[in-house]
């Protein structure tokens, strides 16, 4: 029979062992010979803090009440480690690269180092962890009471309380000693991790020993055990699919989100390759832990029917007088409870200290932060107080809740509480669009729904929520009932709460992210989190690189300004006895620098920045700043460039257009000048040559007359050319003033024919006309119209190459207007030339026969256009044929 005193002695001895192991590990790590302390085995064993006293003792009770359902608690983590181990690896990589200290830090850091999110997650963690710690205290004190009862004395509540208090105090002492020995930038606690690895071994051995005892010692072998199991009522249990799925999801989510799990899995991780080993080793551990749960439950039911099944692991060996086995079992439970409490206290106190205490302290001392005081001491003190406070809270909760049945359900409630972090966590890891606002909305909504549907109702109808609210909803609103939100009734309360909290949480997170815009720092962090696998292969351990001091100086200059930063560095270097600006980056100095920076950019940012440089992170702060600077600059610059290039291309297009116009004009002008030059110089040549001949001396009378005549003719030709040029110029510039009046086409044609027949020395031309058809009234400028007709008749006279030249003038008048055709009986104009005869200087035959400058038809075209008509060449009429179209008199008069 084991007395209470013996039990206490064993406990103290075990605790002393833990202290020694932790101390030895710390010493070893300090000497730099980490060796097996950093092995995958230790990492895997440290993950076993997932198995708390709740699972050590409670799994058997769970099996008695709900059959195989307890397996879900093990299945969730197994699925994560086997199927999603790359998610864990990603977390580890981010944790390494960003020097993450806790899950609150991760969320805060991902969403732009948001203080708000850090506080929310920290509160969530405190609320979720406190009852859990209470549960551990309860299990330890209950196990004490079992031994006391065996010893004869009835366990009174006072003694139970005192036991819990002593345990809590002892744990606080251990945690403070080994959890806050130093303020390491990498937040690793070799002593603690080694101690909990030892505890993991103890609890596994204890549970397996009890299992082996019941199977072979009590039942008489595996076959008999199977028979007993089949016979017991546990075999009758029915599977509830929805509840199973929910519980597996919940335990998987909790495995990643629980502060203590995150701490051992990510923060204490020494090498990401350990994750690969743990991915198969940890599920094996869980399998071993769950293997004998059902046998113990079945034997317990047959040996101790009616007793508390949560303590069968302890009470069955005791009842069968196996004292040493019972002692081992007790130590296993004690280990489960203490390891969980220690790590949870470290994790939560880190969060409380970093996200609540330090920001408040720093802002309170904003003015004098750089003057005096040791931040290092303050941080350590705040950690220690936080640890004490967390354990005190746990103890208080244990006292207040009375250690009753309410605690038994707290495990799942805590799981569901911390699972609210999951959407923000996963979204932050995989979705760059996730924003701070979305995360805050999701977390807050999820937290509220969880509290309303799960946490508050767990206190029963006496605390916060009254019985009336639980039954009929607040103010009698049925669809707000905590266990039947939106009128969905009949669901299991756990399934109901998890479903609604996750749906509302995720929706809030998703919509909030969609409808908000991330800040620059947030985007930078988001990119680094989501793309961590591109940046990091296997992050190196913590190393001092020679470039550190320089990096620190560069960063400090960016934040404090060059002069001040250099002054700080120079002073430090002088104090260390070194010349120049670069002191050794001793912890003291880094610490002071961080404080200095905190005054400028805030604590969280300063810490992250310094930690990244001193921690040998793969992405340096300089890179970050450079990326941020560059991104902003490039964006601005490129938008400027874009505007400029648009302007330039517009201008270029305009210039090109103008240039084309000018080139065309220039070509036209050159061609025109060249033509003018030719037309002027040709008659001039004759005039000059013959004048010189005449001047040169005596010649026959006939020659003299002939030469003078040529000079005279060429002078007239020159005059005509100049007249035509001026006429055309006036017409083209639109400066001509037309003399509009009523006229008869017949009389205009008469004038034209008379004018051409009076020309000197022309060949005879027969002109055929129809006087009746020509009798058409017009509103026009008769002089100008006659000029056109004269031109056309003169052309026929000049160019018609028929034996007996003949010109028909045909007039047709209709609705649209009057057409006047001039058709001769010559060879006509070749098709190729028809399109260009109206252009200036377009002359088809040689100079001599033409006698004109080639401006006639160009002038005609201008005049007819001014008169509102049209002139064109009519092909295939047997000879040269021109058609002049004039508007009808009515139409013109109506204008």
């Amino acid at each position, binding site marked *: 029979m084991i007395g209470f005193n013996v039990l206490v002695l064993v406990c103290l001895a075990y605790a002393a062992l833990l202290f020694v192991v932790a101390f030895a590990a710390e010493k070893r790590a300090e000497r730099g010979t980490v060796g097996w302390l950093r092995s995958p085995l230790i990492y895997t064993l440290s993950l076993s803090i997932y198995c708390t006293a709740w699972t050590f003792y409670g799994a058997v009770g769970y099996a008695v009440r709900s059959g195989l359902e307890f397996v879900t608690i093990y299945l969730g983590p197994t699925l994560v480690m086997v199927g999603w181990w790359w998610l864990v690896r990603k977390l580890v990589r981010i944790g390494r690269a960003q020097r993450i200290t806790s899950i609150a830090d991760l969320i805060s850091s991902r969403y732009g180092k948001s203080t708000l999110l850090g506080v929310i997650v920290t509160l969530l963690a405190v609320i979720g962890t406190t009852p859990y710690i209470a549960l551990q205290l309860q299990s330890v004190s209950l196990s004490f009471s079992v031994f006391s009862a065996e010893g004869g004395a009835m366990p009174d509540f006072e003694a139970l309380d005192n036991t819990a208090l002593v345990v809590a105090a002892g744990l606080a002492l251990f945690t403070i000693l080994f959890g806050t020995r130093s303020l390491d930038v990498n937040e690793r606690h070799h002593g603690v991790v080694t101690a909990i690895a030892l505890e993991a071994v103890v609890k596994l051995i204890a549970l397996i020993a009890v299992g082996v005892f019941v199977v072979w010692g009590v039942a008489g072998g595996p076959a008999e055990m199977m028979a007993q199991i089949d016979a017991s009522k546990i075999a009758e249990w029915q599977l509830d699919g929805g509840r199973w799925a929910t519980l597996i999801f919940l335990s998987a989510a909790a495995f990643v989100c629980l502060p203590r799990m995150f701490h051992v899995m990510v923060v204490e991780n020494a090498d990401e390759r350990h994750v690969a080993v743990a991915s198969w080793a940890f599920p094996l551990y869980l399998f071993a832990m769950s293997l004998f749960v059902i046998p113990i439950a079945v034997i317990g039911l047959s040996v101790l029917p009616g007793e508390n099944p949560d303590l069968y692991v302890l009470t069955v060996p005791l009842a069968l007088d196996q004292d040493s086995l019972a002692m081992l079992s007790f130590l296993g439970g004690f280990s489960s409870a203490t390891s969980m409490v220690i790590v949870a206290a470290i994790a939560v106190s880190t969060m409380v200290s970093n996200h609540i205490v330090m920001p408040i302290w720093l802002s309170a001392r904003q003015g004098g932060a750089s003057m005096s005081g040791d931040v290092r001491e303050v941080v350590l003190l705040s950690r220690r107080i936080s640890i004490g406070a967390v354990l005190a809270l746990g103890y208080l909760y244990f006292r207040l809740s009375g250690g009753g049945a309410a605690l038994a359900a707290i495990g799942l409630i805590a799981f569901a509480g911390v699972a609210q972090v999951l959407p923000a966590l996963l979204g932050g890891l995989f979705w760059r669009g996730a924003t701070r606002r979305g995360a805050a909305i999701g977390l807050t909504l999820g937290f509220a729904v969880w509290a309303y549907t799960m946490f508050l109702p767990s206190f029963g109808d006496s605390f916060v929520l009254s019985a009336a609210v639980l039954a009929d909803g607040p103010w009698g609103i049925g669809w707000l009932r905590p266990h039947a939100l939106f009128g969905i009734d009949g669901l299991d309360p756990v399934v109901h709460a998890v479903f609604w909290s996750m749906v509302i949480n995720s929706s809030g997170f998703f919509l909030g992210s969609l409808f908000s815009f991330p800040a620059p720092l947030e985007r930078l962090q988001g990119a680094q989190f989501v793309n961590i696998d591109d940046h990091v292969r296997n992050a190196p351990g913590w190393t001092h690189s020679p470039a550190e001091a320089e990096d620190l100086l560069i960063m400090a200059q960016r934040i404090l300004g060059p002069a001040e930063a250099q002054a700080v560095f120079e002073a430090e270097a002088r104090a260390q006895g070194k010349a120049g600006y670069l002191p050794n980056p001793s912890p003291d100095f880094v610490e002071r620098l961080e404080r200095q920076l905190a005054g400028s950019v805030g604590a969280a940012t300063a810490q992250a920045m310094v930690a990244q440089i001193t921690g040998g992170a793969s992405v340096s702060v300089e890179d970050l700043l450079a990326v941020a600077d560059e991104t902003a600059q490039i964006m601005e610059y490129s938008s400027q460039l874009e505007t400029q290039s648009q302007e330039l291309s517009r201008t270029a297009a305009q210039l090109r257009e103008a240039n084309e116009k000018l080139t065309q004009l220039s070509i036209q002008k*050159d061609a025109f000048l*060249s033509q003018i*030059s*030719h037309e002027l*110089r*040709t*008659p*001039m*040549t*004759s*005039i*000059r*040559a*013959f004048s*010189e*001949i005449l001047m*040169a001396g005596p010649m026959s009378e006939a020659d003299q007359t002939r030469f003078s005549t*040529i000079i005279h*003719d*060429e002078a007239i030709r020159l005059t005509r050319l100049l007249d035509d040029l001026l006429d055309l110029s006036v017409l083209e510039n639109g400066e001509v003033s037309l003399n509009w009046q009523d006229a008869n086409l017949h009389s205009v044609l008469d004038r034209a024919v008379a004018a051409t027949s009076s020309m000197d020395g022309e060949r005879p031309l027969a002109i055929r006309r129809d006087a009746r058809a020509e009798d058409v009234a017009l509103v026009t400028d008769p002089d100008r119209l006659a000029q056109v007709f004269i031109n056309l008749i003169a052309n026929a006279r000049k160019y018609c190459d028929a034996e007996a030249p003949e010109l028909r003038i045909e007039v047709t008048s209709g609705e649209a207007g009057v057409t006047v055709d001039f058709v001769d009986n010559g060879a006509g104009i070749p098709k190729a030339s028809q399109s260009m005869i109206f252009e200036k200087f377009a002359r088809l*035959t*040689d*100079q*001599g026969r033409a006698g004109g400058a080639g401006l006639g038809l160009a002038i005609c075209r201008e005049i007819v256009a001014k008169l509102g008509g049209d002139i064109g060449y009519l092909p295939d009429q047997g000879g040269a044929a021109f058609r002049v179209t004039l508007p009808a008199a009515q139409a013109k008069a109506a204008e």
Partner: protein
Amino acid sequence: MGKRVLLIEDEPNIIQAIGFILSRDGWTVDTHADGKTALAEIARRGPDLVILDVMLPNRSGFDILQDLRADPATEALPVLMLTARGQKRDRELAERYGASRFMTKPFSNAEVLDSVRELAGS
């Protein structure tokens, strides 16, 4: 003397003027007014010198000049180019294509006479 000049020009009055000036100086002057058949005329007549107008009906004087210079039989034939356009570009073209001399209308009679004498003499 009795040297022969072929005048290729389409303006009747200029033909008369140059014809008069040169024949008075003792030259035998043949004339031709069409660009297209000018080469054949040169080959047929075999003149000592050609006076070639740039703007001829049907074919440009520059084209005719290029063909003359490309043919070994006429590559050294003195050619006096005449143009009424008088632009720099025309002068450059004439030089490039190998005109012996280039004159812009209107010219002085003495100038023509000197050029013809010089070209035929060389």
